[in-house]
C-alpha cells in the first residue's frame, strides 16, 4: 500500500512537470539578473528592495512578504485568495498590469513564453516545496552605476527632500498608486540614489528623468531618497 501511493505520487509529479514544461533555470537566472534583479532579490540573505524578496513565492498568498508595502490591488488579490503558482506567475510575468491593474511592479512584461518558463523555473529553486532554499551564496546583486561609497553615505536632509519632492509629485503619486507612471513612495533610499544617478549618468534612457536627475546635486538626491523612504501613504 505504502509503495503504491509513493508510486502514484511520483507519477503525478512527473506528469504535472511534463505538462508544465519546466524551463531552464540556468537561463532563467540570466534573465532574472538582467530584467528582475534591479528591484528584486532572491536567495540566501535576500531582503526587500524596490520589490519584495522572492524566496518562497510558490504557494504563497499574494502580498504576504513581511515588511513590504504592497499596492492596494495586490493586497486585495491576496485577500481574495490569489496564491502564486506556475499558471498565475506566467500570466503576471507576461503583463503584470493585466493581472493586477494597479500593481506597483512597473515592468512591461516578458513576452516570450520560454523566457517566462525559464524565470519561473529559476524562482522555483528558491521555494521550499519541492526544494529547500539552497545555502548557496546570494545571487550577485548588480548595481547599475558605480557609485563612490561616499555618495551612498550622504545623509539626506528630509526637509529639503520634502520641498524637492514636490516636483516629483506632479507625476509620481504620493499615495504610491501607479496609473502609468511608476510609484516611488517607500523606496529604500539606496535604490533611490542608485536609480537617480543612473538617470543622471544617462544609463537609464528616460528623457524626462534624465533631465530631472541631471540638475540634482548628490546632496539633493540624498535628500529626496531620505524623504521618499520615510513617506507614509
Amino acid at each position: 500500500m505504502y509503495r503504491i501511493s509513493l508510486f502514484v505520487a511520483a507519477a503525478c509529479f512527473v506528469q504535472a512537470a511534463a505538462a508544465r514544461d519546466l524551463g531552464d533555470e540556468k537561463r532563467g537566472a540570466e534573465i532574472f539578473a538582467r530584467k528582475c534583479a534591479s528591484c528584486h532579490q532572491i536567495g540566501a540573505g535576500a531582503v526587500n528592495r524596490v520589490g519584495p524578496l522572492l524566496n518562497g513565492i510558490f504557494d504563497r498568498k499574494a502580498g504576504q512578504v513581511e515588511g513590504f508595502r504592497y499596492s492596494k490591488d495586490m493586497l486585495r488579490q491576496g485577500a481574495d485568495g490569489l496564491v502564486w503558482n506556475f499558471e498565475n506567475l506566467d500570466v503576471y510575468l507576461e503583463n503584470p498590469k493585466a493581472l493586477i491593474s494597479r500593481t506597483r511592479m512597473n515592468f512591461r512584461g516578458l513576452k516570450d513564453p520560454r523566457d517566462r518558463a525559464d524565470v519561473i523555473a529559476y524562482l522555483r529553486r528558491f521555494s521550499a516545496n519541492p526544494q529547500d532554499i539552497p545555502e548557496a551564496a546570494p545571487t550577485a546583486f548588480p548595481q547599475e552605476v558605480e557609485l563612490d561609497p561616499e555618495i551612498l553615505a550622504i545623509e539626506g536632509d528630509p526637509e529639503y527632500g520634502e520641498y524637492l519632492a514636490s516636483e516629483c509629485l506632479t507625476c509620481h503619486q504620493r499615495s504610491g498608486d501607479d496609473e502609468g507612471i511608476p510609484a516611488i513612495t517607500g523606496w529604500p533610499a539606496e535604490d533611490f540614489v542608485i536609480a537617480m544617478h543612473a538617470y543622471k549618468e544617462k544609463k537609464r534612457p528616460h528623457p524626462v528623468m534624465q533631465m530631472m536627475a541631471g540638475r540634482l546635486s548628490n546632496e539633493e538626491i540624498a535628500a529626496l531618497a531620505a524623504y521618499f523612504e520615510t513617506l507614509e501613504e
Partner: protein
Amino acid sequence: MTLNRRKFLGTAAATAAALSAPMVRAQGKPRVVVIGGGAGGATCARYLAKDGKGAIDVTLVEPTRKYYTCFFSNLYLGGFRDFESIGHTYGKLAADYGINVVHDWAVGIDRDARTVTLAGGYTLPYDKLVLSPGIDFIEGSVPGWDISAQNEMPHAYKAGSQTQLLKAQVEAMPEGGTFCLVAPPNPFRCPPGPYERVSMVAHVLKAGNPTAKILVLDPKPKFSKMALFQEGWANHYDGMIEWIGPDFGGDKVEVRPDTMEVVVDGEVTKVDVCNVIPAQRAGKIAAIAGITNDKGWAPVEAFGMQSKMDENIHVLGDSSQQGDMPKSGFSANSQAKVAAMAIRGALLGSKVFPAKYSNTCWSLIDTDDGIKVGASYEATEEKIAKVDGFISKTGESADLRKATYEESVGWYAGITADMFG
C-alpha cells in the same frame, strides 16, 4: 517631517481644541487668499495648507463647483476620455486640508487695504494674495468674433460646456464637411493645444466622416512640436488637414458667425464647424488688480513668482509673465509649489530653498501615438530661464509612442492628485 492625513487632522483638531470657546475664526493667523482653482491656484492652496500645518488661514476663491481641466480636454474631444474623467471637485481641499473654499467670482482687489471683493458682496482680507486666474481673450483679436458668437463658433479654450459644445458640433458635421480652427498668436495657453486638438478632431472624423476636411488658420510661421505633428498628420490623416500659415494669409482672418464663413486674406470659405481660439491675456482680475503690463500679462520675478508691481501678490500660471516657461498646467503646478514655499517663508519664517521649475507637455496624435516636449528651468535676476530640455523625435517606434501616451495618462492622475488632494 512627513505629514500623513491622520496626523494632519490630528494637528488640526489639537489646534482647534487649543482655541478658547466660542471658537474664534483663525484669529492672529496669517491669511492667504488664492484666486483661481486650477493647476496653479489649487496646487498652491493645497501646499500652503499642507505644509503650513494649520498655521496659515487659506481661502481659495473659484467660481466653478466642478473644475474641468483644459489638459486632457482634447482627449475628450477625440473620444479617449469621458467628460466626467476630467472633472474635479474641491471637497478634499476643504475636508482634508482645511482650506476655506469659496465658490464665487473675485471682482475687486484693494491693494492698499489688502482686501478682495467677491461678486456675492463679501470682502476677504489677506496678508498675501495669490492670483492664478488663467486667461481671458483679447476682444477684437479675430475680426467678426466676440463672446456672443461662442455658440456658433466655440473657443473651447476654457474647458467645460464649450468643450462639450465643440464635440457635439464635430459629431454633427455633414458628410465631407469642413472643420476650421483659427489658431491664436503667441503667447497663449498650452502651445501644442490647438494642434493636438486638430489631431483629435481628425481622429473622430477619420472614423465617422472620412471625406471631411480640416482647415487650420495660423498667424504663426511655426508652432510647438511642428515637425512631430506634421509627420503624425501625414501618417494618420493623409490629405485631411490643411495648415495655412502667415505666408498664405493665416494671419489675415475674419470670421462671420451668422453665415458660418471664414475670410482668409479676402477669400471667403464656407465651413461647418469653426473653432476660434482668440489672442489671450491674463484673466481679468489681474488687470483689475492693476498688476498687468501693456501686453495684458502680469510680470513676476523668478525666485517666488512675486508680482513686480506688488510684493504681497504672487501670480501663477498662464496669467504670469515669468520668462521661458510655456503657459501650461504643468508649469502652473510647478510655479505654485515654489510660490507656496516663498509665501510660507515670508509668513512663518520657514526655510526657503532655491526655486526649481520644470515642465513637460504630452500630446496625443492618434491612438497610442503620444509625443512630449519638456524642459527644466532656474530662477535668475532677469527671468525664469531654461536650463535643459528634450523633445520626442520624428520616426520613433510605435512602442515608444505608446509608452509616451501611457505616461501621459499617469501624469494626469498624478497632477490632479497633486492639485485636488
